């Protein structure tokens, strides 16, 4: 490993994805350094979900190259899947299983050596130890988000993909979760990729932001650098400029069905 340059956790080159009539990604190319927290921003249909799904190996691209933690994701994804994890409020865990049962199943799927101590540790850290024995389906959406986050941290992932990690959380809990994720990142050196519509969250957590529109990256930079570049007060205004095509860049087609 070259000591002067940080290793790359993710390398994406010329990524295309088409769904019948819709081009969801149009030659996406980017790199993410190991240990960075990077935000993926874009309006609905910009290509965030498609990009994350391809990085996770859930979706096959039409063309392009994807390398995750140094491995070709299209050919050897099982070499890296034990080292990464994912959380999204839009993908459920089995509702009839208790919280502990769900985490136990995933602990064994990831091949943890010590499943029960890790579950207890996360339950205490994320403050859900009192409802470990409750069915997942009986939890409030905020509680579910915390359990889903625990599932995503079970295997001490070196790469963590988060889709709206604080959706449905009250502001206090959301703030606490952001702090927890930042601590996790600092303690472990993990790489975090964050897709969010919460601009304050992205500003706080991400050192680097990829702005997507119409399946391409239209801009990239640190949150403050983007704010300065667009002459705006905050990242939300930058986001609106880009989403509404006021950045003077090429606009993509209608991508409403992009992730379908």
């Amino acid at each position, binding site marked *: *490993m070259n000591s002067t340059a940080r290793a790359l956790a993710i390398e994406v080159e010329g990524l295309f994805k088409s769904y019948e009539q819709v081009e969801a990604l149009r030659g996406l190319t980017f790199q993410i350094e190991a240990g960075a927290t990077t935000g993926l921003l874009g309006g609905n249909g910009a290509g965030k979900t498609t990009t994350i799904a391809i990085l996770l190996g859930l979706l096959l691209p039409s063309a392009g190259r994807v390398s995750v933690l140094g491995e070709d994701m299209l050919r050897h994804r099982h070499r890296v899947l034990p080292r990464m994890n994912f959380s999204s409020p839009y993908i459920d865990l089995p509702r009839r299983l208790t919280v502990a049962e769900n985490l136990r199943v995933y602990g064994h799927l990831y091949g943890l050596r010590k499943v029960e101590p890790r579950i207890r540790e996360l339950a205490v850290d994320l403050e859900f130890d009192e409802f470990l024995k409750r069915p997942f389906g009986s939890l409030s959406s905020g509680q579910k988000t915390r359990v889903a986050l625990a599932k995503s941290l079970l295997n001490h992932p070196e790469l963590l993909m988060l889709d709206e990690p604080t959706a449905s959380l009250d502001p206090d809990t959301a703030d606490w979760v952001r702090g927890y994720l930042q601590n996790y990142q600092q303690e472990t050196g993990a790489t975090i990729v964050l897709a969010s519509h919460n601009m304050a969250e992205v500003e706080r957590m991400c050192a680097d932001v990829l702005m997507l529109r119409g399946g391409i990256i239209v801009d990239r930079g640190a949150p403050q650098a983007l704010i300065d570049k667009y002459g705006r007060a905050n990242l939300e205004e930058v986001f609106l400029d880009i989403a509404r095509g006021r950045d003077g860049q090429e606009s993509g087609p209608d991508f409403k069905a992009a992730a379908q």
Partner: protein
Amino acid sequence: MSILREYPPHLRRSSFAAFSVGRIFAMVRRYVYLLRGSWPRILELAYWPTMQVVMFGFLTQFLAETSNYYAQAFGVLLSAVLLWDILFRGQLGVTMSFLEEMWSRNLGHLFVSPLRPHEMIVALMTISFFRTLIGIIPATILAVLFFGFSVYSLGFPLIGFFFNLIVMGWAIGLVMSGVVLRYGLGAESLAWVAVFAVAPISGIYYPIGVLPEWLQSVAFFIPASHVFEGMRAILVNGEYRADLMINAILINVVYLSIGSAAFFSFFRTARNRGLLLNLGE
């Protein structure tokens, strides 16, 4: 440039293996939790086989009094009902377990974990095996208690019949799981009825010889038809037909290969179309 460090100390080496018994047990554990937490689900497994045995038991008693055939071969109908249910339960065991993942929108989480599709298949077959036993064993005991007939009187060939029928059920179940994965929960009802497409040519309740000649040729390629002919050979003629058993095994090898290949193919299509992320109603 790979940035992977040595094996993380908190993970077993099998996490990176192409085949992990631990991951299969994890999935079986998931389905056992589901069954354990719901007594109606367990009751449902045994309910239908039990009702079938009661109904066909009384029918057998009636026919035995009025028909030479059934008087000589008491238990042919009861055995047929029980063996057919092995096939039906075997298929449902695979399909229903897979549907649970779709209903709970859990496939995305499962397939970003190290779980591989072939391990999913083995887990589905394993839980199907146990679900089938839970459903069938109480019915066989009931047949002894109520009608004095033990399907276990078929002897060792019963083991061959059992595995041939459940493997055929798994093959159909894998195809149907793939269909539901590819076409969504709208195809769910097909999963319930698919196995009945082969029922008329499986010779469950009648010899294959009663079928038109061209249909007999089709029936030859149904493993279950060899099993039911073999069952009748034992119960009616007191003869074990090894040729029928071998036929069923060989055809089942082809069936299971086709079933697995279909599942892998549908899975790849699902990855291509992004269906693993957008499931559920």
